[in-house]
């Protein structure tokens, strides 16, 4: 079963067995959001919203207050700049403010390539800023299921940073940790697919890379593999993201540096708006770009050490 089928099955079970709700815009039209939404209707709890983005987020929050554990489906992560308002200002604060849980499961879907300045990219950093939000970025069927199970076992609002490239994935992705490595990659979301390719490409050039896949962005969970990988990594690490660098990626890099003392860089979207034309797009780092960046860092790092010794 791939990720899309996993999501669809879990959603169907939630509506049929848990008295749950799933809601969003344009769910039941073209593609049923990439095959992740079960073919059900209003009467089953699959709710079509109007196109009022900001109000839609509030309606979802109200459903959460009512205890229906809504799955709020937002087709493009860029739309969150409108949808986020009620989720981060109410759902995320409700337990702190009033002791009233507001568990809402926000499925926020990223897509890249030729979709312009608004819809492209991941925007999970927007949500990591607010206390009370849990932010998770699954890419495999088991990861998605684990996120759902976490949500159902807790009463907090959760932001699921999905990527359309994950929908056909029907396998799991293991960390790669060598006993001795030159470098460690910490990829998030779709950059995980590119990181794996980059590792093979770099190996061909004699550079050994670890890969530690990141799913929990907030709270950031440094698994034992994170520490093991960095201990073995001569040149530190690189956090890869499909969001802008000045967000979750830098926070995670900072946490890792504090924890390990190793130098950690970030590599995400460029600090500019994306255009529609291919040459003006703003895409997450590709395998080729990751390889280039890793080699630049290694040279820079080596030069710095050499300069330090000379002085």
């Amino acid at each position: 079963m791939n990720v899309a089928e996993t999501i669809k099955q879990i959603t169907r079970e939630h509506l049929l067995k848990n008295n749950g709700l799933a809601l969003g815009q344009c769910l039941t039209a073209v593609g049923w959001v990439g095959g992740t939404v079960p073919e059900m209707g209003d009467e089953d709890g699959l709710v079509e919203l109007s196109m009022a983005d900001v109000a839609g987020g509030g309606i979802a929050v109200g459903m959460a207050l009512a205890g229906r554990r809504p799955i709020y489906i937002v087709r493009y992560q860029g739309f969150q700049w409108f949808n986020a308002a009620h989720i981060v200002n109410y759902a995320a604060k409700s337990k702190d403010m009033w002791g009233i849980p507001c568990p809402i499961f926000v499925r926020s879907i990223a897509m890249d390539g030729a979709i312009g300045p608004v819809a492209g990219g991941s925007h999970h950093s927007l949500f990591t800023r607010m206390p009370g939000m849990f932010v998770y970025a699954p890419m495999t069927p088991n990861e998605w299921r684990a996120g759902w199970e976490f949500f159902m076992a807790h009463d907090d609002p959760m932001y699921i940073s999905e990527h359309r490239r994950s929908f056909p994935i029907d396998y799991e992705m293991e960390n790669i940790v060598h006993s001795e490595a030159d470098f460690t990659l910490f990829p998030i979301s779709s950059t995980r697919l590119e990181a794996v390719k980059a590792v093979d490409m770099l190996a061909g050039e004699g550079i050994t890379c670890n890969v530690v896949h990141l799913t929990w962005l907030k709270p950031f969970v440094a698994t034992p593999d994170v520490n093991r990988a960095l201990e073995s990594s001569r040149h530190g690490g690189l956090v890869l993201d499909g969001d802008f660098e000045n967000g979750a990626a830098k926070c995670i890099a900072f946490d890792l540096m504090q924890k390990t003392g190793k130098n950690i860089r970030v590599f995400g979207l460029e600090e500019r708006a994306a255009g529609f034309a291919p040459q003006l797009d703003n895409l997450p780092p590709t395998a080729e770009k990751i390889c280039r960046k890793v080699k630049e860092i290694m040279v820079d790092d080596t030069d710095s050490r050499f300069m330090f010794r000379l002085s």
Partner: protein
Amino acid sequence: MRSQNTGAIENVIRELSEQDILEIFKRICMIRYFELNVKKAFDKGLIKMPIYLSVGQESVAAALSLVYPDAAIFGQHRCHDLYLAYGGSVEALIDELLHRPTGCAKGMGGSASIHSPAINMFGHDGLMGTQIPIAVGYAFAKNKRTLAVMGDASAEEDYVLGALGYAAHKKLPMAFVCMDNGLSILTKVAVRRNWKMTDIAAAFGIQAVEITDNPWLIVHHMRKFGGAMPIFMNIHVVRHLWHNGTGVDGPPEWDRFALIKEELQKVGMNEKITSIEEDARDSMDRAWETQLALGTI
């Protein structure tokens, strides 16, 4: 046009039983004297946070609580009136305003973000109008009567309009009430817009009325709406004190409390309402004295 007589119906008070009239009056008195005690405490420097008092607009919450009971309540920052009219704990609200962990929101809510699970009243996050879409989602999910109260300024929030439209489309069991004091802090409605909320609501297919804050008139319309939901009431109210704090900018446009007393005296209820008012005043004064005696934080 704002006036103390907007939408008035002659002798509408006769539609109510004496018991209902006196109960509404009692709730009005309770809110008024609670709020005057808040003012006193604030002026003495015992409350160190922004406060949003309901003095002048008590009649709306008092009438709604009688005619629209057992509703889930979504109010806004100025909501001591709703909390008290629907039966929220007086002591817990005093404690909240005195920054105590025994407050209704354990000190987190202050004056603006109070709540009470006991009366199914949800807290407000401080952003204008957010309670409206949240209330719509709640009403949809619970299919339970839900009261959503906004001000004339928050009514202008785009997401309020979107949510109203959705409630109309889904025919949700909701009463929307706009407490229209004609001001966003001090900026008048006419400066901000050239449209009326009742026209917007009606355009969505929601039954809507524009009336003054006469409580008997509110009861009349709520009963007239019957089972038709959702409904919208734009009610002209007068905020006697500052938007935030206890200051006064001048004499109020009208004082509904005084007008009600005058009317009830005319129908021969003077003795009863005097007694009710004294009881309410004593009860609120006592509650404040008792809680204040516990000391401040």
